[in-house]
Every structure is written in structure tokens, then in C-alpha cells.
């Protein structure tokens, strides 16, 4: 990742693609800032895990994916699902617990899913999306399509047995799954060195005979290229890939956590690597972005976010009784058949 390379005009990405990435990163950051604001104002409840600082990872990743590819995400999933195609307004509606939310207000921030776009679920349980993505990849292979499945997860998740089992199965089955570890150096309050001694994830993944690399997670283009290669491999039937994207969480674990355990200097240092600022610099250097366009993007995003909030606020509040629905396909929550014929046919 030498400096020169980074400054060179990419030949594999068009201006439109690069601007779309830039816009998406800005959108995610804006989304989370706005969510934080209304969370602190008491309009949004539950937990809010922000991915501010990490935007390059999901944006770079999903820029290499098709709509029919799958992703699984985590508690810190706003960036992942926005990158894969979620709309701001329906996300806000979900955070507001409204009927127009992706999950009709039943899921909230940690459980956003949009099956129509291959977003098969964020997850409140650390690491549990990983084997699910392997299963999606198995399903792809069995159905004979050329989709791929991507699993996003954090550094902390790599200490879970589920991570290990998932990598091992993917390696054995050689299914089209891409493991994208967003190593933001913290698992809640615990630094990476508490999750693994001298943790080298590339080595770990390679011990399963899975091709692996570590990329600069603060460089959206680097992430894109790494995932692009993995996608090619997966689509051509060459099995799984592991990618560690080194990144940083600019905030505490969730809104409300001051992050007292993150050294000031470390924070400073990483803020200097901000992926959005970096891409802005590059785009300007390459003549792809003027101040005016940049401002326009900011304005557009601001409008989109404000519209989103309005949309959420005015979305119908679910009937409380709605809590009882959607437990089963065929039965109500008390086990009474929902349709006569559906029970066994």
C-alpha cells in the first residue's frame, strides 16, 4: 500500500463509481450522526452502535457486490446494510420503531434485514452471522447460481468458536463466501490484544487453507480491490476468502459509552487516517470532485437524512398488538393455524 499507488488515478474504477463510493461513505456518516442526534434527543431507543470511522470497509466491499449477493452483518451494521442497498428512510423508520421500518419496528438497529436485497440480517449476537453466511454460500452452490455471500464481523468475533467452525466448514466445502473482518482494534472495551495474543488474522485464516489478506480499512479503493478479487474467485467456484480490514471506531462502543479505554493519541492518529477525508483528497486531486460538487453532495445527503427522519416520524406507529404477529409462518403465537391449508400440504 505505498503512497504513490494510492495517488495514481485508478484504471479499474470510473469517476461515477468513485463518486458513488464517496457519496455512500458520507451518507453513512451522516446517517449515524443523525441517528445519534435523535437517539440523544430520546426519539430513538435501544442500542446504537456507530460505525463512524469504518465506512470504507462496507462501502468498498459492497461496491464489489451485486444486488443478489448476500451479506450478514452485526450489531454495528448501519454501514453494512446501507452499503448493500438499504434506504435511509426505512432505516430511520426502523430505528423509530415504526411500521415502515425494514422490520416493522420489531428489529431495531441491531436486526435490520432486507431479504429483497440479499441483506439476510444484522445480528445482535457476536459471530453468529458468520456460519449463517457460510450456509447462504452452501445454498448458492446447491442452487447453482453465481452469487456470493459476504459475512461482516468484528475483531472480537474472531475469539468465538463459531468463527472457527464457520471458516473450517467454508474451507471444507469450498463455498463462495467472503469473510470480511472489520478489525477496529476494539471488542467493546477490550483492545485487539485481549482477543488474540499477537493476533495475526491472515495467519489464522491461512491455517484453514483459506486465501487471506489484510487490507487498509481506511482506504475504500484498497478494500474494493481486495473484495473484487475475492468475488471473482468465489464466482468462479474457487471457494472462500478471508479479508481483514484494519480500521478504527471513532467513537465509543455505543452511544453513551465515552470510550475511556481508548487512548487519546491512538484516537488522534486514526482520525488522521479518516477514509472519507482521504477519498475526498484523492477525488479532488484526480479532478473528480470540485468543492461545489462536494457541497452539493453534502446538501443532498442532509436533505435525504432530514427527509428520512420526517418519513420515520410520520410513519405509522405499529399497533402494540402487532407484537404478537410474525412468530411463525403457519401458526399464530398460540399455535393456532393461520390458514387451514398451510399446516401440512
Amino acid at each position, binding site marked *: 500500500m505505498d503512497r504513490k499507488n494510492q495517488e495514481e488515478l485508478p484504471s479499474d474504477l470510473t469517476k461515477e463509481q468513485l463518486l458513488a463510493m464517496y457519496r455512500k461513505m458520507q451518507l453513512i456518516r451522516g446517517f449515524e450522526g443523525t441517528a445519534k442526534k435523535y437517539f440523544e434527543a430520546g426519539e430513538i431507543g435501544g442500542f446504537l452502535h456507530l460505525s463512524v470511522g469504518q465506512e470504507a470497509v462496507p462501502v468498498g466491499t459492497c461496491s464489489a457486490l451485486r444486488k443478489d449477493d*448476500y451479506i*450478514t452483518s452485526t450489531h454495528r451494521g448501519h454501514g453494512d446494510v446501507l452499503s448493500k442497498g438499504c434506504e435511509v428512510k426505512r432505516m430511520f423508520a426502523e430505528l423509530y420503531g415504526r411500521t415502515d*421500518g*425494514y*422490520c*416493522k*419496528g*420489531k*428489529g431495531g438497529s441491531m*436486526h435490520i*434485514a*432486507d*431479504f429483497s436485497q440479499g441483506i*439476510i*440480517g444484522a*445480528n*445482535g*449476537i457476536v459471530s*453468529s452471522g*458468520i*456460519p*449463517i*453466511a*457460510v*450456509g*447462504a*454460500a*452452501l*445454498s*448458492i452452490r*446447491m*442452487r447453482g447460481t453465481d452469487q456470493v*455471500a459476504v459475512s461482516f464481523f468484528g475483531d472480537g468475533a474472531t475469539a468465538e*468458536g*463459531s468463527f472457527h*467452525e*464457520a471458516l*473450517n*466448514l467454508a474451507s*471444507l*466445502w469450498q463455498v463462495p463466501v467472503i469473510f470480511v473482518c472489520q478489525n477496529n482494534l476494539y471488542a467493546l472495551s477490550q483492545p485487539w490484544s485481549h482477543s488474540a495474543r499477537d493476533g495475526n488474522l491472515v495467519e489464522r485464516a491461512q491455517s484453514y487453507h483459506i486465501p487471506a489478506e489484510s487490507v487498509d480499512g481506511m482506504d475504500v479503493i484498497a478494500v474494493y480491490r481486495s473484495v473484487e478479487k475475492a468475488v471473482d474467485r468465489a464466482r468462479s467456484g474457487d471457494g472462500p476468502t478471508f479479508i481483514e480490514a484494519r480500521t478504527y471506531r471513532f467513537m465509543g462502543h455505543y452511544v453513551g459509552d465515552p470510550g475511556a479505554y481508548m487512548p487519546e493519541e491512538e484516537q488522534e492518529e486514526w482520525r488522521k487516517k479518516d477514509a472519507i477525508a482521504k477519498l475526498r483528497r484523492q477525488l479532488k486531486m484526480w479532478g473528480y470532485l470540485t468543492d461545489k460538487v462536494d457541497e452539493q453532495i453534502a446538501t443532498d445527503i442532509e436533505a435525504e437524512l432530514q427527509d428520512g427522519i420526517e418519513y420515520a416520524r410520520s410513519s405509522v406507529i405499529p399497533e402494540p398488538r402487532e407484537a404478537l*404477529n*410474525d*412468530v*411463525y*409462518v*403457519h*401458526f399464530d*403465537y*398460540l*399455535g*393456532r*393455524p393461520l390458514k387451514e391449508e398451510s*399446516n*401440512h*400440504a
Partner: protein
Amino acid sequence: MREITYREALKEALIEEMKRDERVFLLGEDIADPFGSAYKVTLGLSSIFGTDRVIQTPISEQGFTGAAVGAALTGMRPVVEFMYIDFTTMAMEQLVNQAAKIRYMSGGQAKVPVVFRTQGGPGRSSAAQHAQSIEALFHHIPGLLVAMPSSAYDAKGLLKTAIRLDDPVIFIEQKLLYNTKGEVPEEEYTIPFGVADVKRNGTDCTVVATSMTVLKALKAADILAEEGISIEVVDPRTLFPLDIETIVESVKKTSRLLITHEAPERGGFAAEVAAQVANLAFDYLDAPIQRVCAPSVPIPFARNMEDYIMIDESKIADRVRKLIRGDI
């Protein structure tokens, strides 16, 4: 009608459903030939369908359960085998937090059509980690369905239904039932979930029994019949959905209720039946509700100790007699 074993009935269900729907596939440890699974239910299937549809997994219960969930979410219909119900605890997170809840958390977008087959129960000196009856753990979790067939006929019909349902099913077989035989028609059939089967009609006491204890209750019924006591044996077949109406109707007729299962008494399924009846049929009850369940201890190894805690016909018959004598 022809008679086949519980094992054969299950295998037929798997074969028929795999033939009917190519999205159905099997996943589990040691399920392929020549071993063909610990209790031989899947023996021969990899030879028919190939190891692409009878997928052997390493010993990774968490991993393959998650993989089954992921496959189910994306258009496939996995049928997973846990060799022993005791090992489901390894995958409890995926079962409880994922399989059971994804549909709800996604606001009804997702379907999770996956069947988790497993077997439990004592009776073979398998000791504390290979003979549990922990259906209550699944029965308590919103989002899961639980089936426990007691006969070859029910096993086949319920398994076919389980595979066709779009909800996650915990399908619990019993190790001692595999060799039991029963009438199973040649023609295709399915059995709906949530419909109890009155395995024997009677008038003096309702006995709700599950899985292995249905057989014991039927034996007890024979013994008691000779003494002029007539019990009605109700097999719910699925613990959830539960056909409480049939149970309540029976209690209204008999005025007495005994529930029996192989699982430990404390917090078991019988408690739920007792609680529902103590609410819904309170005025019809002439006697205290009885449970004949295993004492709440782990399963001991030695056969005589294991026998001691197992449910047999005499334990059921004794309690019924007492109940009828008003001797409780």
C-alpha cells in the same frame, strides 16, 4: 396394512421428501454411507442422493446449525441431524437466538424452513450426556415448533409435514423406538402439527403421554382395563403447537388428569399441560393433577439405576389407581 419400523418410516419420509423437492437436503455428522448415521435412519440415503445432498459435517454443531439457518434463509430446506439431543446444547445459540427469531426480528420477511432431527431418552445405559430429554428447552422458546412422534405412523407423517413447513422444527425421536413396528400405509400421507391423537379411548382418567411414554401408557391401560379402570391415552404428537382442546375435552369426560414423559419433572412439558388444564378445565377436575415424569436428576449409567428413574407401565398404573381411589 404393512408394518414397518419407526426407523424405516422416518427414512421413507426423508426419501419421499427429497424426491419431491430438490431443495430438501440433509446435513449432519456421520450421516453418509457406509456408516449411515448413529441410529441408521439415513443409511442408504447418500447412495441414493449423493453426498451433495447428504452432506456430512465435521463435529461442528454450532457451525452446521448456523449453516442450515443460512441455507434455509436463501431458498433451501435443510434437514439437520443432531446425533444426540444432548449435543443440541452446542448449537443452542443458533437455535434459540437465530432459527427461532429471525422471522420475527425481520418483521416477517424471513422464512426459516429447517428441520432439526435428533433423538433422546434413556434406556441404553448411555449415561448423563447421551440420554437426556430436553424438549422443554425448545418448547419454551417462541419461534420453534416441537414434534415428538411415538409411532412409526406418526414419525413418517409428522416428519413429512415438518419438512414442508416454513417454520423451524425440532423433531425429536427416541432411541428405543427405532426398532418398534407399526402400521404405515403405502400411500403418501402427512399429519398436521397441532392435532393430538387419542391413542386409546377411556372414561376414568386422561393420560397425556409423549414419545416413549405413550407405549408405556398403553401398556398401563391394558393392565388397568383388567381391573376395570379405563384410561384415555392422549398423545399430543407436537408439543407446540399443542392441541389443548383435545386434552381438555378428554379431561371434561374423565375428570382426572395424569401427564407422563421421560424428561425430568421440574419445569418439564407436563407442567405446561397441568397449568393449562388447571386454568381451562378447573371445574371439571375431580382430583389433583398428577405428573409421572423422571425425577429431576441426570441419567445414571448403571442399568438398575437408569431403570429406576425411567417411566414404565407400573408407575403410570399405580398412580392412576391412587388417583381413582382418591389416595393422593
